[in-house]
């Protein structure tokens, strides 16, 4: 290497280079510009807090509302590292609402948060087992070599897995499968644009539509289960026991909504992107030979599968007694104890700041309820809907679904449920509708973040492959959102009443 090139690489490579530029070239004006949305958020929130509270809303209520508005602006525009938003929510509750700091600290930890923590650790542990090649082999054996069948197989298998272990886990495992099929078909990305889109979206939407299938499918489900308990459960009133939604109850109502959508996903993807190849026999043969080189499954593989199945059985049988979170943590502990994953891998693979963020968002949601802010927003929303005839029954559910779909496309679906859950549940109360039905509609609709790359973890993961453009999500996402909303409303008006909800 020429010394001049060597010298340049030493100057630019890695952290040292970035710190250097930060010190030498960034002035105050650049800082203010970069952080403009942070200051705008504070300004908007500050102005809201100074306004006289509208009728029906207390001063504390408007403070919580202002904090929520600030949090939403910061979630969407990201001018500061997102865990900072969590820290600000915690500080705000102590300083602005005058809540004792120990009380705030206690409100941060709940079973939902334990579940988020445990399922993330499980996600890393499962991905590290390298079972993805086995799964890929299973798919191509099952589907043959036709592109349409492979897409259906990928959607189905991704869906079945992510309905129990979280869509981020499955998307992380299935992404190399899709990329391998694409690159084995052609190394020129431009020649396989349609094929790449169909395969990657099969992973993405397969995961997204299935994440609502069971409570362990995603953080949003655990958050909604937590809200039902927090908002409506009263140990002294047997009438409220139905709000302790267990694993099987959730699965009974939501799993069919996922299954119905599987063929719709494949049909829409094939119709939208028209893959260049209708048969992937060459790629499949190469993939098979790659997978065969791994040899038969070993003891470690079987142990990992056994631990995961045991965790799943415990979720199904004991989640109402011990909570989803405890069992998720138990599963993660088992992986660590058996040496199936290293703590260093878990530690680097989990973004702990996000766990803190969910904890703070849920805590703020509870304040929304306690201060009456959620009820006020819900009532105001209902008054807006009334003249349009959307204030009860299926039209109300459609409005809730549309609202959630809109919000979830601008932020993570877990954050969307954490922010919207208190409002939609209070909306159900104000409209004399079942909080369970409205809660399910909110949680399920939060999966309809098909239009943007940041809406769901699976979208972000497949987008990171570099094969997709944001426009692709808009093109097919709109069709998916319409189809999924129709399926959901059909389930809410026909299937759920028949199933006893």
């Amino acid at each position, binding site marked *: *290497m020429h010394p001049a*090139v060597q010298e340049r690489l030493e100057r630019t490579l890695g952290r040292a280079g970035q710190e*250097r530029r930060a010190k030498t070239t960034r002035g105050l004006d650049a800082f203010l510009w970069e952080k403009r949305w942070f200051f705008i958020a504070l300004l908007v929130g500050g102005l809201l807090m100074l306004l006289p509270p509208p009728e029906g809303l207390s001063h504390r209520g408007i403070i919580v509302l202002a904090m929520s508005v600030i949090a939403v602006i910061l979630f969407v525009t990201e001018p500061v590292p997102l865990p900072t938003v969590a820290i600000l929510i915690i500080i705000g509750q102590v300083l602005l609402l005058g809540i004792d700091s120990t009380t705030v600290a206690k409100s941060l930890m709940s079973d939902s948060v334990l579940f988020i923590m445990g399922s993330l650790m499980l996600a890393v542990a499962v991905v590290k087992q390298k079972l993805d090649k086995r799964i890929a082999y299973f798919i191509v054996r099952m589907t043959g070599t036709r592109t349409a069948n492979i897409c259906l197989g990928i959607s189905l298998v991704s869906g079945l897995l992510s309905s129990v272990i979280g869509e981020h886990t499955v998307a992380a495992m299935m992404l190399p499968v899709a990329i391998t099929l694409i690159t084995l078909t052609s190394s020129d990305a431009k020649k396989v644009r349609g094929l790449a889109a169909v395969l990657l979206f099969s992973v993405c939407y397969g995961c997204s539509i299935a994440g609502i299938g069971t409570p362990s499918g995603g953080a949003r489900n655990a958050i909604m289960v937590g809200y039902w308990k927090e908002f409506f459960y009263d140990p002294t009133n047997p009438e409220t026991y139905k709000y302790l939604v267990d694993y099987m109850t959730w699965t009974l109502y939501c799993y069919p909504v996922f299954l119905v959508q599987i063929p719709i996903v494949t049909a829409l993807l094939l119709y939208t992107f028209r893959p260049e190849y209708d048969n992937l026999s060459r790629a499949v043969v190469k993939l098979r030979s790659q997978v065969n080189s791994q040899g038969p499954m070993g003891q470690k593989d079987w142990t990992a599968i056994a631990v995961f199945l045991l965790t799943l059985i415990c979720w199904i049988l004991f989640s109402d007694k011990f909570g989803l979170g405890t069992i998720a943590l138990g599963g993660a502990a088992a992986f660590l104890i058996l040496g199936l994953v290293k703590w260093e891998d878990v530690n680097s693979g989990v973004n702990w700041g996000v766990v803190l963020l969910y904890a703070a968002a849920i805590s703020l949601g509870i304040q929304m309820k306690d201060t009456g802010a959620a009820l006020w927003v819900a009532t105001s929303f209902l008054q807006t809907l009334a003249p349009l005839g959307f204030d009860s029954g299926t039209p109300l559910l459609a409005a809730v679904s549309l609202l959630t779909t809109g919000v979830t496309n601008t932020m993570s679906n877990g954050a969307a449920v954490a922010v919207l859950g208190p409002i939609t549940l209070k909306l159900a109360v104000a409209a004399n509708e079942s909080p369970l039905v409205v809660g399910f509609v909110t949680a399920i609709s939060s999966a309809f973040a098909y239009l943007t790359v940041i809406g769901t973890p699976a979208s972000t993961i497949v987008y990171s492959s*570099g094969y997709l453009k944001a426009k692709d999500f808009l093109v097919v996402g709109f069709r998916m959102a319409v189809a999924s909303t129709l399926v959901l409303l059909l389930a809410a008006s026909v299937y759920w009443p028949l199933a006893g909800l």
Partner: protein
Amino acid sequence: MAGRKPGLSTDGERFSIVVCFDGSEESHRALRYAVRIGSGTDADLTLLYVRPFDQGLRTSGLDLSVVRENILSWGLDLPGMRVLKEGRDALVELGWLDSEWEQEHAHAQVRGDPLGDNAIVYSSPSGRSVVLRLLVAQSVADGVLDECELGQYNLCIVGWPASGGASGVGYITHEIATRIAREHTGTVLVSRFLEESHGHLVCVSNHEGSILSARTDAEVAARCACPIYLLSVAPSQSKLYAAKRAIARARAAIRDAGLEVSGATTLVGDPVTTIIEEGKKYSVIVMSRFRRRTGWRQVFSNSIAFKVLARAKNSVMIVR
């Protein structure tokens, strides 16, 4: 910090070009132009792809490094490296790079991400080098600006995407290209439907910096054997004399550098629209700019150079 100041002056040192390469049609055109400018034994060419830092909330807390490690375990390239290798293959097709070149890898962790920054360096027996540079940064623009300023390249070339801006990971959008042109302390060529053989239109005024820019651009144009044309626009008839004087000064400065001017024009009219209209006939419109506008100040900027950059239909080079 040791090393030369950013800019176009070669002064007997190695000439270095960084091309922001995202795999788009425009970045391929920019690469071809870089090869043309860089032809010579002293040129180093860097292909740069920037991946923004991950934002954990978007993946519900699962770090994308887990996904990337999984991709690597399948023997696949990371997306950025795949794009850069596409650029490398284009260089092989252009005859710039061949199998005799030595290959070395360099790597550094960034923010605890073990996959972090990567570079593959190809060195020719004659001393030229090509670097495939995969960088992680706060944003694509931040990464390009980091690399350009710390690497002290003579020239940064960034493609202006054809239709409003592509939107894949690491893609250059209009906003990113504009920010790089505004904030970089060195010279930036914003490549837009870049056709190689129509010469450089160098816009000059009586400002000392403008005359210097004309000279430094002439040195670059000479590297690719591109003809140089001078243009000075007088906003009114009364300022025509000053415009003609600017042309004469620029011509003399270029002649002093041992180079020739192929033509010169003095026109009267609105500078921005006149330059854009006249510039359509050339490969590159060259503008000088000495003040960087960063942060909120750019909102109030009234720079002719940036107005031309925003509205022109062809490539614009901002010389600093």
